[in-house]
């Protein structure tokens, strides 16, 4: 009895304090909103937004709703995060491996890179790329071609435009290839376990991945037209490239800064993971007659990945959250479009900030849930 009371009292006090604080806040919010004549509600999402966004993945202009603007911002955030994650993984893995190189120069160059980019605030790096480095690029009329027909200019990076016919057939063919690869892999595993025969899964997979999309070109009526950028004069001094896909400088600066910064952390994760696999594992695997490739694939990588993946996912999450710094250089991401422009226009601070936070929160939580599931799956199963 005594014990129950002892446990109940602090809980009740905490609960009471939380309710008190929340009640106080809601009460104030109610009064403040009454005074300003705003009504709480999410109905404004359906209203016409009447502002324009300069870079959007989906069709959007001022006549669309605020909900559509939210979607534009979210997609832009996801685009930056996606490119950033891929680039930072590539750089991070290379640098992480380079840090373990026996070559003195390579090791120290990699270490220098990590120490240099890790210790400068990300915001300053974004500013540096956007305001200092990319501003030094040539105007469109002075730009020289990179790799034949792409142009890096102060107005952005112009790359050839791909015009697809029957794009959906092409995508379906890739999907079909992936599904058949999964089936073949599980079949090969079964064969290996039952009969000890090894199928050349890698070559079959590669072949399928190339053959099926190729077939879609031949049979499915897919065709691809590449339009190379050509300089076009708009006014006396205004030039642009058309027809071309233009990546805005904000996107380039953001992706560069994010991936160079996050890559330093990923490099450290990779290094720790590879160092974490003991040398005895490699020697034991070699002594039972596995080839070097098998040692890497079957013994080293599974163990190293177990150490590498959890912290790396954390870094991916950080990258996604850090992409919100886009607002500082006016890249139209979720924070700028929704928590910036839309908030300014509607004045609905509580609704908009809460939606923005909940969006990031749900991205984070869903990745954590996935991560926990994966962690459980790859954890060492002790018998």
């Amino acid at each position, binding site marked *: 009895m005594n014990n129950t009371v002892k446990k109940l009292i602090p809980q009740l006090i905490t609960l009471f304090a939380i309710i008190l604080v929340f009640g106080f806040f809601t009460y104030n919010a109610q009064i403040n909103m009454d005074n300003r004549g705003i009504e709480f509600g999410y109905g404004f999402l359906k209203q016409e937004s009447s502002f324009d966004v300069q870079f959007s993945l989906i069709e959007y202009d001022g006549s669309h709703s605020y909900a559509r603007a939210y979607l534009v911002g979210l997609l832009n955030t996801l685009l930056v995060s996606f490119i950033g994650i891929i680039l930072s993984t590539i750089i991070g893995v290379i640098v992480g491996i380079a840090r373990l190189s026996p070559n003195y*120069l390579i090791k120290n160059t990699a270490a220098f890179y990590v120490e240099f980019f890790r210790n400068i605030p990300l915001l300053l790096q974004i500013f540096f790329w956007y305001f200092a480095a990319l501003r030094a690029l040539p105007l469109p009329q002075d730009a020289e071609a990179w790799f034949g027909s792409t142009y890096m200019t102060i107005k952005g990076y112009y790359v050839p435009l791909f015009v697809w016919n029957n794009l959906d057939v092409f995508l379906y063919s890739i999907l079909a290839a992936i599904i058949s690869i999964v089936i073949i892999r599980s079949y090969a595993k079964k064969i290996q376990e039952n009969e000890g025969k090894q199928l050349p899964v890698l070559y079959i997979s590669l072949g399928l991945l190339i053959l099926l999309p190729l077939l879609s070109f031949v049979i499915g009526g897919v065709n691809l037209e590449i339009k190379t950028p050509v300089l076009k004069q708009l006014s006396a001094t205004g030039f642009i490239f058309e027809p071309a896909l233009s990546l805005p400088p904000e996107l380039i600066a953001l992706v560069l800064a994010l991936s160079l910064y996050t890559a330093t952390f990923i490099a450290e994760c990779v290094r720790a993971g590879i160092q974490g696999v003991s040398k005895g594992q490699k020697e034991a695997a070699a002594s039972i007659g596995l080839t070097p490739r098998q040692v890497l694939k079957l013994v080293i990588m599974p163990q190293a990945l177990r150490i590498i993946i959890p912290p790396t996912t954390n870094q991916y999450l950080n990258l996604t959250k850090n992409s919100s710094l886009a607002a500082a250089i006016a890249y139209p991401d979720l924070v700028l479009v929704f928590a910036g422009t839309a908030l300014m226009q509607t004045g609905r601070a509580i609704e908009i900030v809460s939606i923005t936070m909940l969006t990031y929160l749900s991205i984070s939580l869903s990745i954590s849930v996935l991560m926990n599931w994966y962690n459980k799956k790859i954890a060492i199963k002790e018998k």
Partner: protein
Amino acid sequence: MNKLNFLKPDKNNLNIYLYTGSILIIISILDVFLSSFFKINATNFLPETLSLFLPLLFGLIGLHLVRIEFSGIKYLDLLNKNINTNNFNGLLTLLIIFMIILAAPPALSWFIFDANISGDTKDACTGTGACWTYIKVWFRRFMYGMYPNELQWRINVSFIILVALAFVGYFAGEKLKKFLTLYYVIIYPIIAYILIYYLISGGAFGLEWVETGAWGGLSLTFIVSFFCLIFCFPIGMLLALGRRSSLPTIKYFSVGFIEFWRGVPLITVLFMSSVMFPMFLPEDFFMDKLVRVIIAISLFEAAYVAEVIRGGLQALPRGQYDAAKSLGMGYWKMHIFVILPQALKLVIPGIANTFLALVKDTPLIFVVGLMEIAGMLGLAKTNPKWLGFAMEGYVFAAIIFWIICYAMSKYSYNLEIKYKTER
């Protein structure tokens, strides 16, 4: 004389291989060096693409020729072992050396040789390099923001006093040692608050009032990170204990609180503190923007600190809890005297890393209009008299932050080593 096989250098004709190889390497490096430092293209009689790859080819062949195992020459063996183990390594080595040689002249000329530092106006910058005059003229603004020039001694004095007070722990005698925790956790923050409130902000004792809107530059970065650091630690500790509590209400509240703050980006938290939070306060109640920002960042970082401390708490063996309980200690007594001292010692490196992240996050406060160093740089580069010096400004700020953060990370690394050996 043995037969020479240039594909497979060996020890028998050591000198021949060594001399040919060295000459080739020297030629290749000299070629790059000349073209980089003196703009002399020694191979311009060749087609452009070939003259570009020639030094690389020469260097590779040279490195291949000197790759002789157990040559008996100390430095050659050292070289082979460290930078020249195989062809691929040799190629990377050459590429790195060439890159350094090629990058050195433009970097040096921009930073030093073609840079200007004299004068007080933009006209003084005539060179093609950096314009350090810009930094010189704006230096006080970058350091102190809009704080009045003649009052800046107040910031300096309070920082010096704060740093001096922080080192009290090193000089405390044996008798006073037990009060140190009390001093750092309670007394020091109060002194710091009073100092900053009365000395930097002013308004009493005949000191002129300076509103927080005028604070800025690097000193604001320090003030914000300092207070957030002081506040987020105790909050984080309580949250960590709460998350491991057996009382469900407290536990789930802590879990929810921590996961919420860890799931959102700092920039939205700052937006919340500046546009949403005032809606939750009584109408006539005014809270300074700086105070709101400090509260927001403290809560945000507290969630990260809590997770780090939780790691330490989990790492302690169960026996410690059982032993403390068997001595009849209650919850608080057990944690204050047995658990926390050990757990905190374990997580010192983790906490140092969190604080490092905190310092790196502070430039973000510029999105809500507080002009710390990134904000001042933005202001300075749009000043019509000083257009076009964004590069110098960001390089300057990057160097300052790099020094601070690098020192912190090295310090935390040293702490890690120190506490690792003790256990």
